[in-house]
């Protein structure tokens, strides 16, 4: 056979320019759509940074992180973000303390114990919890859970982090349950068969084999749930109280970053004032917190992706 030489291209096989151009244009349009996501991120970061920069012209970064009072709207203003951060972290911690055990156990139950049918029915219903407007949960915390708690702690103020945190926990149960269940479902059947074949029971298989195998997915679910809790607004705004309070005591009332933002937004928005800028500075901190949780979550999932 002859050695390959460059051959001319017959017109029947040559590139169809019109078709190729059309294809490129379509691709470009689709790409623009994908870029909206990037643009949104940039816009968010841009807006937050822009207003925060004006804010930090008035307030030093050191004061921002070390002052223990947050009273930007009062005559004698203090700009220490820590009281808001402590409120945010405390409510989130309570939420997780509720949601992690219940969510995980629910996930194990759904994935390993429930029949296929139960799972098909229950999982979507559980997901409905995610769709309930958070305002409703807020009032549920204020009018139902807190009074209930007050029968245990009579001195509990009507706005407190405990009630808000518990309800927020209830809200994120489905989130953890659903994501963890997905992770457990992804564990191949062969792994379970291996365990059952050794004479293990369901519980042993679930706890000793399936859960460890799915652990990175489960941990990622926890982390994403933290980020949800940290960013949740209406429940804490309504039920946790709106008084910035540097405390980690769940029985006290305190403001979270999100609650502060809506509280200011509900009042007035004197564009350009320090008060206006302060919600962006608070927003920036919130964004940084959730972003780092999200990144850690993704990292965990990627880094420890199960290689079965």
């Amino acid at each position, binding site marked *: 056979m002859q050695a390959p030489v460059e051959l001319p291209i017959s017109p029947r096989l040559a590139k169809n320019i019109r078709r190729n151009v059309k294809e490129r244009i379509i691709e470009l349009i689709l790409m623009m759509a994908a870029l909206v996501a990037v643009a949104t991120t940039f816009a968010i970061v841009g807006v937050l940074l822009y207003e925060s920069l004006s804010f930090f012209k008035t307030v030093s970064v050191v004061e921002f992180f070390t002052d223990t009072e947050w009273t930007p*709207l009062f005559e004698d203003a203090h700009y220490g973000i820590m009281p808001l951060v402590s409120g945010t972290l405390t409510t989130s911690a309570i939420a997780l303390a509720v949601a992690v055990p219940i969510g995980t156990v629910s996930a194990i139950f759904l994935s390993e114990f429930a029949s296929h049918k139960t799972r098909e029915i229950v999982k979507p219903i559980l997901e409905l919890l995610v769709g309930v407007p958070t305002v409703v949960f807020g009032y549920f915390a204020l009018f139902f859970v807190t009074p209930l708690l007050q029968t245990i702690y009579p001195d509990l*103020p009507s706005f407190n982090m405990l009630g808000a945190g518990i309800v927020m926990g209830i809200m994120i149960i489905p989130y953890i349950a659903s994501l963890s269940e997905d992770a457990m479902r992804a564990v191949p059947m062969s792994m379970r068969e291996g365990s059952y074949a050794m004479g293990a029971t369901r519980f042993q298989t679930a706890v000793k084999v399936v859960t460890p195998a799915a652990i990175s997915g489960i941990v990622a679910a926890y982390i994403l749930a933290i980020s949800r809790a940290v960013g949740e607004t209406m429940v804490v705004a309504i039920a946790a109280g709106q008084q910035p309070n540097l405390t980690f005591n769940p029985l006290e009332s305190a403001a979270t970053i999100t609650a502060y933002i809506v509280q200011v937004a509900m009042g007035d928005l*004197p564009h350009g004032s320090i008060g206006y800028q302060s919600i962006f500075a608070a927003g920036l901190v919130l964004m940084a917190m959730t972003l780092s949780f999200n990144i850690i979550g993704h990292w965990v999932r990627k880094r420890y992706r199960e290689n079965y």
Partner: protein
Amino acid sequence: ADKIIKIDGSSTVYPITEAVAEEFQRTKGIKVTVGESGTGGGFKKFCRGETDISDASRPITQKEIDLCKEGGVQFIELPVAYDALTVVVNSKNDWVKQLTVAELKKIWEPNSSVKNWKQVNATFPDKAMNLYGPGTSSGTFDYFTEAVNGKAKASRKDYTPSEDDNVLVQGVSGNVGGLAYFGLAYYLENTDKLRAIPIVAKEGGKPVLPSEATVMDGTYQPLARPLFIYVNATSAAFKPEIKAFVNFYLENAPELVKEVKYVPLPKEDYDAVKTHFKAMKPGTGFNGTSEVGIKITDLLSRIK
């Protein structure tokens, strides 16, 4: 485009304006929006020309007058009702029979260290005190701090602030040691959960409960206050719907103010306000400072 009357401002005045707006839309078919950003928040928008009318639970301040000047906004100041700023406690609180202004000051002054009822008055029990009050963009806050602490906006900061008065109601009603202050109407709607405290204006004086009568006869001091609407003068002059709305407001105020549980002005005062509006006299009778216990007719006559 459709004509829309835009109103924002005080959450105290909101129920009155809302009632007027509702009736006005029902009878005249012109659209009205009413926000409740608080007196301060309302003025910010008003002075930028974003709204036609601003509700206020205190007179306009010098700062705001300057802002309006900057924004080229002239305003007409119209008192529309009285309110009694009410100090409330939980209905299970059986120890407070009255509070003097001095005691209120002790509680609310900047850097107040009062955290327990005992600290206010030795006869009170050793019970934690939880404070609730309006937020900083609220006219009620300004008025109360002026009347009690002697300086507008001077207040302690470690209390639960909210522009939403119902949050305050909720706070006190769920807390035996709670204390809050807000407009009379919010108290009257919640008498089952809250108890209003009679206020002693001067040491040795008589304790007075807030009510229509004590406001009208001037004995509920220093916490009785007039409520206002501020109308954009240009709008009033050139937009017939604004003029119609304000006239409708003043015409129906006596009835509607009562309905929403505020205290109407005496009839002759409403007549004076109507005349004042007809004359379209811009400006304020307060000169940018707050005054406690002033008469409406005096006020109007100050504006030239």
